[in-house]
């Protein structure tokens, strides 16, 4: 379920192999490790909402939708009139981005090469 969200938020995630998915999910788990229980409960509940709410609009749960419909559904959450829904989606999106862009490999792919040696590393 979470992987389907990540693939929609970051389309490049389709190309990840199983080791990369493990790394991504490990980073997300680690970031949630010490979070308050109320936040974790809210997140689980929101994931359930994302999975089942599309039944009413598209007749299928989120994981059974094509990319276009997944995108439309998540865009609806992002632009919802409800503060709670928007904030919930913001949190879920943040976790997806953390898992994907928190990986060293993702940084390399987008051309981010910060180096502790700074100018020296560039000028060599």
């Amino acid at each position, binding site marked *: 379920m979470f992987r389907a969200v990540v693939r929609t938020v970051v389309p490049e995630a389709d190309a990840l192999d199983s080791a990369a998915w493990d790394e991504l999910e490990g980073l997300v788990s680690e970031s949630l490790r010490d979070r308050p229980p109320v936040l974790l409960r809210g997140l689980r509940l929101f994931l359930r909402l994302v999975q089942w709410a599309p039944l009413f609009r598209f007749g299928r749960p989120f994981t059974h939708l094509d990319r276009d419909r997944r995108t439309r559904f998540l865009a609806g959450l992002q632009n919802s009139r409800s503060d709670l829904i928007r904030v919930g989606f913001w949190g879920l999106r*943040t976790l997806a981005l953390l898992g994907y862009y928190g990986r060293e490999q993702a940084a390399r792919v987008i051309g*981010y090469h*910060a180096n502790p040696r700074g100018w020296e590393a560039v000028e060599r």
Partner: protein
Amino acid sequence: MREREYDIAIIGSGAGGGTVAQELAPLCRDGASIVVLEKGPRLRDDEFNGRELEMAEALYEDGGGLLTADGSLTLAMGCGYGGSTTVYTGTSIAAPQRVIESWNVPGLGYEEVMRRTRKFIEQNDVHYLEEGRINENNRLFVDGCRRLGYDVEQFPINVRGCRGSSLCNLGCPNGAKQGTNRVQLPRAEREGVEVVTRCEVKRLEGRTLIARVTSKPEGGKGEPSPWEAGEYRIRAKLIVVCAGAVNSPALLLRSRLPARLPRLGHGFTAHPALILVAEHERAISNFVGHPKSYYLDQFVESEGFILETCMYFPFTTAKSLRGFGAPHSAFMRAFPRLQMILVLACDRADPANRVTVDRRGRPMVHYRFAPAVKKALARGTLAAARIFFAAGARRVHVPAATQTTVERDDAERLEQIIDERHFRPGGVSVSAAHLQGGCAMGLTTDDSVTDSYGRVHGVPWLFVADASLFPDAIEINPYLTIMALADRVAQRIRQDAGTLLS
């Protein structure tokens, strides 16, 4: 429960705690025992590797992602030896005269704040970075501002031997930034002050601190605490709370104090900020070089915002862009061509914005975006977008707008596109690192928590010395002013040491 006893206990080791530790250290020569209790770890120099998530986890409270009660604002607070001075960019500017005067704290004058500020400008090696070391991300900001006739200014910074890693916010991997972790704390330790890391003070029971020392987590960064893991009762004759604008009021709210403090937790401000991004036609130097060299504050009084240069890391950047999917990825793939500007809103103390604690004693920050703050963020976004285009950007990402990507051809329509009505909680990523207020200075318990020397009203042995003392937003990067106020608090303690420690 283990027992310890000191003359003075300082809680926190950031700009406030580190300064107080240094300034009280001479008392050690007269036999006083002083301890600094720091919740976070002390990292070895070789552990600063610039990896975004790893360093954020090691050096920030909640990995830099502490959320306000409604989840609409992310708060970044340093947590470790040196506190937030380990993870700021070293930007060091003095408080504006009009701000100090508007605080209207009896006994606290601008001239005195400046005198103390100058002391730390010298002590922490604050100076301007030489022009040859300014990267294009910063130079483009200057170019854009000058083309628009804006009065751009250079940040004085406190680096010594900066190699331009751009990783300041993840802790300098080269030890160049002169925070309290490099200057004040080592001096204090040399004079006999003890620093105990991984030690979280849970509450005060009178002059006894109830604290917990944790062991180093497996695979975690930093030295183990010098104390064994476990619960401690630490008796002190005098306590100085320097845990920051969230944790200082939260600690006092959890504690049994012999005084009624109705203003405790009130007056929280944060300079909420948006990270804005623009794409240029060609690669620019952005993730090399000091990230924050210039700022624009000419609109602070008229429109309530400041612009600063900035450069963040992949996840932080991704989070700051609105939206998702292919358009979001297109900006991320352009990383080497990205220019960034930070828009900070100068929020005002607001009755809705305060620190409380939940049933378990955890801090809860309640923050509402006042209409003036939304407007300031929108006006700041507009000014930043103009600067981006004036600097030659091909397109600009604007999070609170009718469309999130504005191409150069649409630059004339920015005024119609960017609108505070699109600024809605959860719709835009807003973060804050300048957390202030909660234990404000003032005259009585009706208007404040402490007097102008940081002494808590009605509790002569309890002081506060950090950004929580600010009665309202400082409207600049706060560190030098925190140090100046901490210096003032420490001087009063030294003057009264005979009585306070007897």
